[in-house]
């Protein structure tokens, strides 16, 4: 189990580091957040995130009602 933890953490930190480098290089070379959002809003990703947000709000409201009833 300890060895698996080591392997997983190495993979995760490597991917996070690589992602951070990509984001940094993108911003340095002239990325624009408004342009990115306009493209994302037209794609299916935006609709998917909206749906997830809706489900999360419903689940949160249900959990609060459950806690209040206790």
């Amino acid at each position, binding site marked *: 189990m300890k060895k698996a933890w080591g392997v997983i953490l190495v*993979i995760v930190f490597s991917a996070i580091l690589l*992602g951070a480098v*990509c984001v940094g290089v993108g911003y340095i070379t002239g990325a*624009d957040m408004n342009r990115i959002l306009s493209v994302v809003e037209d794609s299916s990703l935006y609709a998917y995130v909206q749906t997830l947000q809706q489900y999360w709000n419903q689940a949160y409201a249900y959990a609060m009602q459950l806690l209040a009833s206790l």
Partner: protein
Amino acid sequence: MTDINKQRFLAELAQLLTFMYEEDRQDALMVYSAMFDEAQDEQALLQALVSPIRQAVLVARAYNATERKLQAHSQSRSEAGAPRDESVAPDYLQAIFAIRAEALSKQAAKVEAVQEDKNQFSLFDLAAQEQAAGAEAPAESAEAPAEEAPAGSEAEAEVPAGSEAEDGEAPAEEARVDAFMADFAIAEEGAAPAEEAPAGEAPAQSSVEELLDAAEKEVDEQDERFVVVVDGSDKPVRERTVLKPRVPLLILYVLLAIPVTLVGIVLLLLPTLASLGAAAVLISVGVMAVSSVFGGFAVLADLLVVLGAALILLALGLLFLWLFIWFIGGAIVGLIRGVCALGRKWCYKEVPAI
């Protein structure tokens, strides 16, 4: 019988030392063989050495295959015939020399104790002396002295005719039987390990670790199953034990442990399910972000930013997925095992087996 024990010990030791280089193995076996030759009481030496596995473990701990390879290359052949200097010998040989010194010192102490016992007067000693005197008389009358007869397996072939007298016949028979047994032991057991070990083959370091693991595991298993009881004699007596439940305590423990364990499982299920949900969301969003990268972005800088964000999301998703697996397989199973182990510790006691 003593020859058979010596041969068996050396044969088993030779099989266990196959992880060593062939030359080193032969050196080690020669030292052990010399140890037996020097020993006054072979059984006492065998008891001091305990077992071939123990000796193999001691040698393996002191043996460094990589270092020995370098030394073997640098060592000239002329030095091989020179008398061995124990102070500059390799580590494994020094370890064997230390074992030899310890075993021989123990044995010397034991022999002294036996000598003191023999100094006491006994009627059996008188009878034995009379028998010995009767056996010497015909041997002295023969033409060739009995001392010229070679020891070992050829003893019976060159025994003088005069020694076949009635009194001298019994020792000659014993010598013949011992010689036959010695020859039999060498032919059956001594040849086997030499054939199995290929000469000059480089040993794997992993075999040393396997040997150590196997020996330690065997010792651990024996320690778990047996309790050593010393009853005043030299040899410890091993007694088998069994676990006997304390029934009232066990019932009480089960009644308390089940609800506590259930509460613990429920509490652990909350972060488990939360980890699973987070992992599902992060991985799905990351995958969709990667797929959208190759769809609508025309500027490379924008593409890099989205790709970097997707990588970070996927990495976090992997972390939460592993947390879910760890909660299920590690934390919850560990909780149940811990409760069972605690119950075994508190509610059972070890008693000698009937």
